[in-house]
């Protein structure tokens, strides 16, 4: 029996990757939940616009690298982030002007807005492929590890190894800062409070003199920023492929609905629940239990509940269960 090894093993293969993946999901789910709270529709173009924003970041990164500019130990993509964020916000505002604003004016049903966002999704989908192609791109540079398995073994002298990749570390830091700033903005500033007021009670917000168009612009700007952060961090951590980003829509929505649509804190909690469930259910627990149990009890099988290919099935199951048993989510958001 060796509980320390079991713990290290679990940290290396489940906890750290799930924390990083959960943070990336949280940034995306926050955008979904904010847009749902303020604009009152499910934003289906989220994944594809995230791909668009990340594509801009990647192209800018390559351009910077072409000029011989790098960011030392940190990935060059961080320098390119502002360009991607600005491009994405402009893109979202253009979509709002040309598509969503009309439906808002005629007070269309949410479902119509959802369909409109589906249209925006298809257009963006094509645009991203024109921009950077459908293939996989890697754009990480700088140091790969904060500490590697070998470093860890040398420091501790333990048999199990633990690594922390720079992209994972960076994800955690950036996500934490972004979430802290978001909550500060929502709870402490006039603009943030007007957003919450508008989300709470649209008519009363109008009566109080809150300008809805301004609230909408702020919402798109925040959602756009979060999308590009999520997309870039995901791309650095794993890799960039437009189709993969489109697929992230499912865990985004699962996280936002699980937490309670319209509730930012819920979106974050939901994102980590989804990430840990996906990782936990598709992880082969055999070695973990080999460390933890007496040798004679060692399991025969892999103890993997589902193959990794089925990780979206886990998310889908969470989504279905929440919608059946608690449609308002953990934190009592708006029901779907």
């Amino acid at each position: 029996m060796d509980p320390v090894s079991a713990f290290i093993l679990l940290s290396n293969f489940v906890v750290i990757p799930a924390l990083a993946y959960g943070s990336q999901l949280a940034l995306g789910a926050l955008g979904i939940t904010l847009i749902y709270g303020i604009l009152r529709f499910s934003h289906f173009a989220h994944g594809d616009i995230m791909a668009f924003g990340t594509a801009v970041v990647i192209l800018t990164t390559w351009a910077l690298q072409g000029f011989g500019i790098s960011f030392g130990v940190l990935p060059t993509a961080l320098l390119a982030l502002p360009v991607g964020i600005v491009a994405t916000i402009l893109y979202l505002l253009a979509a709002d002007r040309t598509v969503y604003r009309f439906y808002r004016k005629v007070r269309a049903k949410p479902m119509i807005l959802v369909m409109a966002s589906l249209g925006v999704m298809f257009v963006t989908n094509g645009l991203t492929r024109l921009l950077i192609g459908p293939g996989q791109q890697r754009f990480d540079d700088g140091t790969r590890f904060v500490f590697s398995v070998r470093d860890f073994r040398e420091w501790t002298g333990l048999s199990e190894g633990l690594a922390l990749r720079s992209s994972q570390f960076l994800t955690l830091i950036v996500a934490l800062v972004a979430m802290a700033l978001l909550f500060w903005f929502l709870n402490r500033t006039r603009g943030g409070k007007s957003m919450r007021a508008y989300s709470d009670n649209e008519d009363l917000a109008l009566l109080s003199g809150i300008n809805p168009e301004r609230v909408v612009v702020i919402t798109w700007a925040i959602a756009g920023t979060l999308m590009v952060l999520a997309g870039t961090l995901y791309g650095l951590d794993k890799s960039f492929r437009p189709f993969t980003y489109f697929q992230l829509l499912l865990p985004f929505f699962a996280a936002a609905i699980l937490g309670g649509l319209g509730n930012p804190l819920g979106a974050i909690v939901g994102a980590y629940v989804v990430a840990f469930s996906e990782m936990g259910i598709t992880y082969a627990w055999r070695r973990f239990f080999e460390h933890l149990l007496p040798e004679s009890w060692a399991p025969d099988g892999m103890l993997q509940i589902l193959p990794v290919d089925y990780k979206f099935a886990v998310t889908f199951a969470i989504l279905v269960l929440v919608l059946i048993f608690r449609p308002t989510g953990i934190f009592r958001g708006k029901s779907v």
Partner: protein
Amino acid sequence: MADPFLIGEAMTGGYGGADILHACTIAVNKGEIAVIVGPNGAGKSTAMKAVFGMLKLREGHVRLAGEDITALTPQARVAKGMGFVPQNNNIFPSMSVEENLQMGAFIRTDDFSGTMEQVYDLFPILREKRRQAAGELSGGQRQQVAVGRALMTKPSVLMLDEPTAGVSPIVMDELFDRIIEVARTGISILMVEQNARQALEIADKGYVLVQGQNRFTDTGQALLADPEVRKSFLGG
């Protein structure tokens, strides 16, 4: 007679389709309380919404301090000094009491902490619960938040749509006391009430509406004393 501070004169209109109001006139003087009563479906709330601009008038005018505001949007009327407390959904439930009041003062660019203190003095329970989410409060306390929110713009006239709907009789009396206090500070009050008797008792002016028309208009006391009003609308 001098023109009343706020008057909706000979208002005719509805929500599209048939008219609900027929040459209905509602007015309130400075610092006075005017109450609109009448049976269900008489157009009481509609008359108030018409005064506040939430209803398009086919005929008639609304004047505030002598200025014709018939064409203004509700938002513009708020800026002109009208405060409105809707009957339902009149608070921001997930925001704290204090934030509700801050949102009430959204259009103000000056320092509104003095006004907030006045609201807390008027409704001491709100000071106690200032950090609590408004949606977690009791019905009566929510109404106090709603009234407090509307007072944050320092309105010259406050319009209340059934402020005592769904609160207990004790709380109702307390709310009426507070409303009298607000009126004493010089704010005109226009109020729609289901509890006709209690409302007329505190009213300087009462309007009995029936089918979108003025049936009786007099001081609150006179209406309470009028045998016909008593028989038809106050249950004897």
